[in-house]
């Protein structure tokens, strides 16, 4: 009984935090204009990648509509929207592509411009980037 009380007491504050975190996360999802907004921003960002001399060659063989769909689903899921990312893991997708940190950052810069285009506040942009940043370890292999 005592042990149970301890568990309940310990779980209490965590549950509160989780609820609060969820509310905050939805706020970022809203700031991106929900699923529709994310789709537009990703479309804009990918179009910018394809114009970007630094990395356009990386996408020469890519299925662009699929890339846009996958990225939209991934961003939407990361921001706790009602989406599921069902693509491959980042490590698997980028294996053998010999991507460098500069390539990763070029993508970030193009998406920052896309988020600016759709008036996503800088603070909210950074909340998404904070979730993407650790993927650098799996994506950049060179």
């Amino acid at each position, binding site marked *: 009984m005592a042990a149970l009380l301890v568990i309940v007491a310990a779980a209490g504050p965590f549950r509160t935090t989780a609820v609060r975190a969820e509310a905050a996360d939805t706020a970022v999802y809203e700031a991106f204009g929900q699923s529709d907004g994310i789709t537009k921003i990703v479309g804009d960002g990918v179009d910018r990648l394809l114009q970007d001399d630094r990395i356009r060659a990386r996408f020469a063989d890519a299925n662009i509509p699929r890339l846009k769909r996958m990225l939209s689903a991934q961003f939407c899921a990361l921001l706790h929207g009602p989406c599921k990312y069902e693509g491959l893991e980042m490590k698997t997708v980028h294996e053998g592509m010999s991507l*460098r*940190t*500069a390539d990763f*950052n*070029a993508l*970030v*810069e193009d998406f*920052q411009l896309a988020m600016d285009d759709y008036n996503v506040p*800088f*603070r909210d942009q*950074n*909340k998404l*980037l*904070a*979730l993407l*940043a*650790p993927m*650098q*370890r799996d994506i950049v292999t*060179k």
Partner: protein
Amino acid sequence: MSRILTRLAILIAGALMSISVMGGAAAQDLFNSGKLLATGGVTNIEGAGGGGIATWALITGYETRDAVGANAHYNFVSLPDFTLHTTGVSVGLYDRVELSYSHLWFDTGNSGAKLGLGTGFTFQQDIFGLKVKVLGDAVYDQDSLLPQIAVGTQYKVTDHADILRAVGAKDNAGIDFYVAATKLFLDQSILVDTTLRATKSNQLGILGFGGPRNDDYRPEFEGSIAYLFAKDFAVGAEYRTKQDNLGFTKENDWKDLFLAYFVNKHASLTLAYVDLGTIATFKDQRGFYLSAQVGF
């Protein structure tokens, strides 16, 4: 000697800039400016990558881990009774190693006469810096609380050794050792740095090293907190503890409030309000700090 070093440093910086701007594909790869805006920090008062008065764990320049970056800087501090300016260059190698050289002029202006040194008497100092990133990544490790950690050392030598000894300093040259931890809390748009420095310096070593009150290495603290309110703007505050080794004057902790503007990856400007306390018996040295840097 120092004038030659300064000119040489500026020449090297210019040459590197030309190569990076006009060079071919290989040069563009090596001098890629691939880091994200602002994540190389700015060049601080000692010529190291950091903020204004604090040295950070970030490696200077916009190079990524497979490239090379460099900066040239000019810093200016205007105080009620003194003027300080510095210029120099720094190189970032593979986002791992930072080498820096900075030359500092501490102009006593009219205060020089009051100190018995003569109007416009100027101390000059050379600062050679080496910093190595040893652990973590301030930008990418957003899923962990581990900061980017770097260790560094600075060799400083100030001229007019006879005068420095006459006012009680034990030496006109000294070596600092530091450990810096810097973390970008990207989801909060906040950057935090804490640095511990083992030093004997009096006013960065401008007034020499050690003194009648103390001649041992002691740990001092440097800290910065910055809020990034746009891709190209940061505001922040800094604090730096100081020793009080000399007998003829008190020495106080330094603090500042700064605004940094990153024009692009090739230029940045930092403006700060600084409170440097008492310097060489002159109290309330509050003024402004301006830093300009160009690089890649």
